[in-house]
């Protein structure tokens, strides 16, 4: 075999933001990045998304917050976070040194919340804003904005007006028509899209004869949902011309390659990073290895070929 292959190029341009590689740690599964430091240097990542931030601090949901399912994890955290102000003041200065793209994931309950929160956080040194209109675990707001294309367009348009950083909109797999929402967000000015957030599911404790979660339903993530996430990533990629960041059940470098073949510009890793802290590091290495083995020089050679 030929031996003088060059190392594959993993660099990704995400609407102007240059990422070292396409591997981004997903919101809510990576804290604010500090938790990973004992395990590896976060600078190796393409980037990471912060835990969902809201205008005001939120305590999150009470009761059980996690339930494992076959090859999956259900969660009902409920956007527990210290609020944008505390994030920008106390946390961001500490994590800026990581030398990787910081994407602020922003949640909300009202249109005004979203606009104010995105404006506020976009004035800071974060590299990008990920607008979470797809959280299934908050009663008023969150997912409601990601369900209807018109409502999604409205919130994106409003946020976009004052958001000073590239705006990535995170879509909900629970939308009746995720492609329609994607198109509406693109038209409303989104710079990029990310998908999927968790899928609404139900767990029942048959012995106690009640739902496991206080909110009854909760969001399903992990390897179980990968085929569904991959299908949606392809559907949305084919429908829009802005970059799409795919996620849902990614565990390996080959999973990452599959999402890129389905059209993703970059990918995010959530649940698999909870299973093992060094997962993202391993996925980057595996993706490089896969590309070398299969003689793929850069991601654009395989992006969207399916």
């Amino acid at each position, binding site marked *: 075999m030929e031996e003088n292959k060059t190392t594959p190029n993993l660099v990704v341009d995400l609407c102007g933001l240059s990422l070292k590689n396409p591997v981004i740690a997903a919101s*809510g599964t990576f804290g604010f990045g500090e938790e990973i430091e004992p*395990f590896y240097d976060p600078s190796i990542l393409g980037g990471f998304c912060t835990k969902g931030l809201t205008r005001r601090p939120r*305590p999150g949901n009470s009761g059980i*917050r*996690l339930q*494992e399912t076959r*090859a999956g994890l259900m*969660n009902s955290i409920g956007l527990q976070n210290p609020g944008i102000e505390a994030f920008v003041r106390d946390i961001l200065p500490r994590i800026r040194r990581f030398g990787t793209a910081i994407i602020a994931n922003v949640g909300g309950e009202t249109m005004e919340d979203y606009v104010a929160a995105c404006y506020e956080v976009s004035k800071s040194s974060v590299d990008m804003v990920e607008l979470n209109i797809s959280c299934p675990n908050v009663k008023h707001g969150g997912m409601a904005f990601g369900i209807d294309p018109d409502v999604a367009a409205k919130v994106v348009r409003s946020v976009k007006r004052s958001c000073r950083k590239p705006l990535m909109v995170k879509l909900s797999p629970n939308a009746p028509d995720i492609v329609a929402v994607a198109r509406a967000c693109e038209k409303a000015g989104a710079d990029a899209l990310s998908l999927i957030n968790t899928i609404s599911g139900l767990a029942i404790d048959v012995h106690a004869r009640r739902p496991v979660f206080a909110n009854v339903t909760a969001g399903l993530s992990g390897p179980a949902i990968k085929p569904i996430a991959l299908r949606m990533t392809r559907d949305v990629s084919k429908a829009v011309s802005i970059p799409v960041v795919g996620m849902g059940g990614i565990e390996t470098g080959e999973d990452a390659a599959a999402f890129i073949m389905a059209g993703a510009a970059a990918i995010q890793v959530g649940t698999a990073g*909870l299973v*093992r802290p060094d997962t993202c590091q391993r996925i980057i290495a595996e993706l490089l290895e896969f590309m070398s083995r299969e003689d793929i020089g850069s991601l654009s050679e395989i992006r969207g070929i399916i």
Partner: protein
Amino acid sequence: MKSDLYVALENRQIAPGIMRLSIQRSEATGGMRELPEREIGIKRKTPLNFEAEDWAYSPVEPGQFFMLKTRAVEPLLPRPLSVHEASGDVVVFLYQTRGAGTKAIAALETGDPVLATGPCGRGFPVDDITGRVALIAGGIGIAPFRYLARRLSKSPSISSLVLVAGFRSMLFGLEDIAPFVTEIRVATEDGSAGTKGFVTDIIAPAPFDAVLACGPIPMLKAVKDSCKSAGTRCLVSVEARMACGIGACLGCTINTRSGNRRVCVDGPVFPAEEVLFDGGE
């Protein structure tokens, strides 16, 4: 705190449904990242001599835990187990087989690889505990108390150390702790050994300077309340469902006087008065 590959040295049932697992982090595995498909070629049993030294890799606080994952694909998530002993390159766990995760751990055989992340969390502040001390264990809550008792027994500022252990019926783990405590009191729910009843029936906190407790929530709550009445300092080790064990997912939070706290990094050991059992008080 590190995530590394270990090898199962011994995994033995010590009472019905209760197992003791020792794992070894050695030069041969310390550098490995992946769970190999078949066993690693390490079968030697390190003589478990815990009198001598502490864990070789970093200081371990009693009450800290490791997240353990076997080669089994299911369950997805690792499981938290408290440090029962730690010495040299060996960590020992005492655990009860309950669901899928502990069953996968129970299936480990000598030589099998285990992925372990730890030591995680905050344990009992050994240097900060003084005088007459009571350890209160409910069931498998006794797991961290062997290492805790050994560490406390070395502290010159401890004047007496009483172990108060409650079980449903079968006793276990006591003989490992006996060498390090001045007294052991036992209660069983069915009266088959010791006093019939609950741990709270056989200890009054007043004579103690500190009470350290680990066990089911109702027990911790009762211990907290009686310590409060007696004015005795009380520390409790709390359980919560965990996904990451390193503070990244917020899945393990409990409600405390200072708001939500993550059991995996802010605990599992908390001052009892901090913890709002039942979400409020």
